[in-house]
């Protein structure tokens, strides 16, 4: 499967929406940089990502989460990883698609 990375805020950009629409069930989605705002509870897009999590695995880069001070708001079921974990995900999946 492909690893999909999303680095844009879902409140400002359509990138996360496009990724969710065009990624296959069973694939992995990694939220990085401003993309980590998509990993949070209680926002207007939380239900979109919760729906996606029924069929896809969602990760968020912990250094980016902590930088933004949102570590206490991460949705249950999202796996936090560090850069080493990002490298592992890239290696485990067949190719990496960046939703720029």
């Amino acid at each position, binding site marked *: 499967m492909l690893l999909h990375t999303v680095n844009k805020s879902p409140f400002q950009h359509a990138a996360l929406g496009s990724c969710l629409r065009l990624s296959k069930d069973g694939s992995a989605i990694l939220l990085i940089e401003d993309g980590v*705002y998509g990993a949070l509870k209680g926002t*207007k897009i939380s239900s979109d990502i919760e729906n996606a999590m029924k069929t896809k695995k969602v990760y968020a880069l912990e*250094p*980016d989460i*902590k*930088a*933004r001070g949102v570590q206490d708001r991460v949705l249950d079921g999202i796996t936090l990883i560090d850069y080493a974990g990002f490298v592992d995900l890239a290696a485990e999946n067949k190719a990496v698609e960046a939703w720029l």
Partner: protein
Amino acid sequence: MSEEMMEEGGGGVIKKFCYINRKAPYGTIYALESLEVVLIGAAFEQDVSVVFADDGIYQLTKGQDTAGIEMKNFSPTYRALEMYDVEKLYVEKESLEERGMTADDLIVPVEVLSSAQLQDLMEDQDVVLSF
């Protein structure tokens, strides 16, 4: 560099300056470089308002820890704005709500305004700088 000579170049004019911050910190540099303008601008003794809307409110999130991305955490600087006599900080209510946040989640005291109130505030400005 003739900057020092120009710093007081306003010549007594006082304008309403509004800085509008709509972008999240760290993902791009706009938030940091906007703050640098506000700090420099404070020396000109204008009537300054700073607005945070859309993802700009994330600039003020408490508990930022940037060690893991090797960038400087500049959020404490917002607390210093008061010392520069930049005291009018506004946050849009709708932007907070969309993100499930309240003013308590922010690192500095702000005035929360509705979109309609913010429209009036911005309409009243002489100079609007957007970042």
